[in-house]
């Protein structure tokens, strides 16, 4: 009950933020009714997807300060579970998604227990290693189509099919993921005020002090890692239905893991709005750069050079991200 109240209570943000947030929410809800290009629509869906990945990452990476660079493996588990269950047994999305989450969370506990014995760089690289091992495994696994992956043939379903989440038009997908998105915000709002959220922020601050206050740091990290995993896995399931063609290289690569962490960091890790702001900047930037520059002959790679340079500048100049800058400015005005 109190959790629900916490989830719905945004009163600790200034009115300006809430007005902005509400305007964005309204814009997102009515956007499909206005004329738009299909490119804009797919960019917006990507934005929502990556916001959610970023929110998941933000629990352990932002609030907890544990730099996790292996989130793509859970995206893969979620996506493949849904795809395989749909193809083999015609299972609805709403069953395969929780099953995928179950697999992901189980796997996260298995590797999380040893992973969180490591700290700092060692932890970050180990998360990459586990993700790559799983990707290699998927690339030779016949059940999931090996390196060629799986294709969901939409043709055999009557659309719109809300049970299997197979649609022809992007608008349906848009509203489904928008629902996930709003749920994600409420969940994160409750999380940051929960006991676990406080414990994690204390661990990030100073682990020795946190433990001296009775916090089981190792277990708190593992639990949070599982929450982050559930987020990524559920959205990964959606990704499978939306993209319909999944292969290890696209869904489980290191680039995806890094992108997820980057979104949250650019926007401001450890804040409610950070991952959303980060995704709102990076996703359109990336897709429009690719559209404008990547498609022109002889310009292959230019988009990613600019993209990489932006990452470099942000990391060197303002590692606390956009939200960190806003908070700093506000704090200065207050004092």
């Amino acid at each position: 009950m109190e959790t629900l109240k916490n989830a719905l209570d945004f009163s600790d943000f200034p009115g300006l933020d809430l007005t902005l947030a509400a305007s964005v929410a309204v814009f997102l809800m009515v956007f499909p009714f206005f004329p738009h290009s299909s490119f804009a629509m797919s960019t917006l869906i990507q934005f929502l997807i990556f916001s959610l990945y970023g929110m998941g990452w933000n629990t352990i990476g932002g609030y907890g300060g544990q730099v996790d660079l292996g989130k793509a493996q859970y995206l893969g588990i979620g996506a493949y579970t849904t795809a395989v269950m749909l193809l083999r047994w015609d299972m609805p999305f709403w069953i395969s998604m929780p099953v995928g989450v179950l697999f992901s969370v189980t796997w996260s506990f298995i590797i999380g227990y040893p992973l969180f014995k490591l700290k700092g760089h060692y932890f970050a690289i180990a998360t990459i290693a586990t993700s790559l091992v799983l990707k290699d495994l998927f690339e030779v696994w016949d059940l999931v189509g090996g390196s060629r992956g799986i294709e969901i043939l939409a043709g055999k379903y009557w659309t719109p099919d809300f049970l299997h989440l197979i649609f022809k038009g992007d608008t349906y997908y848009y509203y489904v993921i928008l629902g996930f998105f709003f749920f994600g915000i409420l969940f994160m709002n409750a999380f940051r005020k929960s006991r676990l959220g406080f414990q994690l922020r204390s661990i990030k601050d100073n682990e020795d002090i946190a433990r001296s206050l009775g916090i089981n740091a190792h277990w708190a990290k593992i639990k949070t890692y599982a929450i982050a995993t559930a987020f990524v896995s559920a959205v990964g399931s959606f990704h499978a239905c939306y993209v319909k063609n999944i292969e290890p290289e696209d869904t489980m690569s290191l680039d995806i893991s890094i992108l997820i962490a980057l979104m949250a960091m650019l926007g401001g890790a450890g804040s409610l709005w950070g991952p959303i702001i980060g995704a709102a900047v990076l996703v359109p930037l990336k897709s429009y750069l690719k559209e404008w520059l990547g498609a022109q002959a002889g310009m292959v790679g230019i988009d990613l050079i600019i993209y990489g340079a932006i990452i470099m500048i942000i990391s060197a100049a303002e590692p606390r991200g956009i939200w960190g800058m806003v908070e700093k400015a506000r704090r200065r005005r207050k004092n």
Partner: protein
Amino acid sequence: MALLEVDNLTKRFGGLTANNAISFQVLEGELLGLIGPNGAGKTTLFNCIAGLHPIDSGTIHFNGKNISRLASHEIARLGLARTFQIMVASGDLNVLENIMVGCFLHTASRMRAKAEAARILEEMELSDLGGFLVSELPVAAQKRVALATALGTRPKLLLLDEVAAGLNPSEIEAITETIHRIHSRMGVTVMLIEHVMEMVMNLSQRVVVLDYGQKIAEGDPGLVVKDPNVIKAYLGERYAREHA
């Protein structure tokens, strides 16, 4: 009755013996001072009791329970809290939220944790500072926040590591008064490491003296400072001989 009972505790770091066969007790309701020159092993002893360092031999009993092998968070849950010499708080938790972290040990409800933290803030005369980051505060206030955070866990025994270091005389007087209040009014048993002798003398009912990892004296503060071994430890062999 002994609340904390340390028996033959030994802790080595490589070849260095930081605590050598130390035994002492802290009685329920007592205020015990732990003194000794720099490098005597006081903080190490705290870290061993609080479960931050694994001990090499000996036993530690708290409230009748053997805690020698427990992890530090398990020990904290039994009601043994400590403060750290350096309160590193560079993070984004403000003062109130810091204290709430301690309070969350006994409740999962944010409302209750917040109410209790607010009460402790008031008790510690920090009410005006609740919204600040710890890093924005002067040292004296930071020390109070450290105390308040530990109090949030509702400890039976509080280990204080140099809460007066870096404070000026009037601030020392204020924090002495606060510790006294925590001890007498809130009924918390306290053990403190302190270099400010005046403070130890005023507060402690009993002191334990460490030197080079050994316990060299124990007892009434007025008597202990006259102990030749203690004088020798603090002021050197020659001084002790000349003034004997």
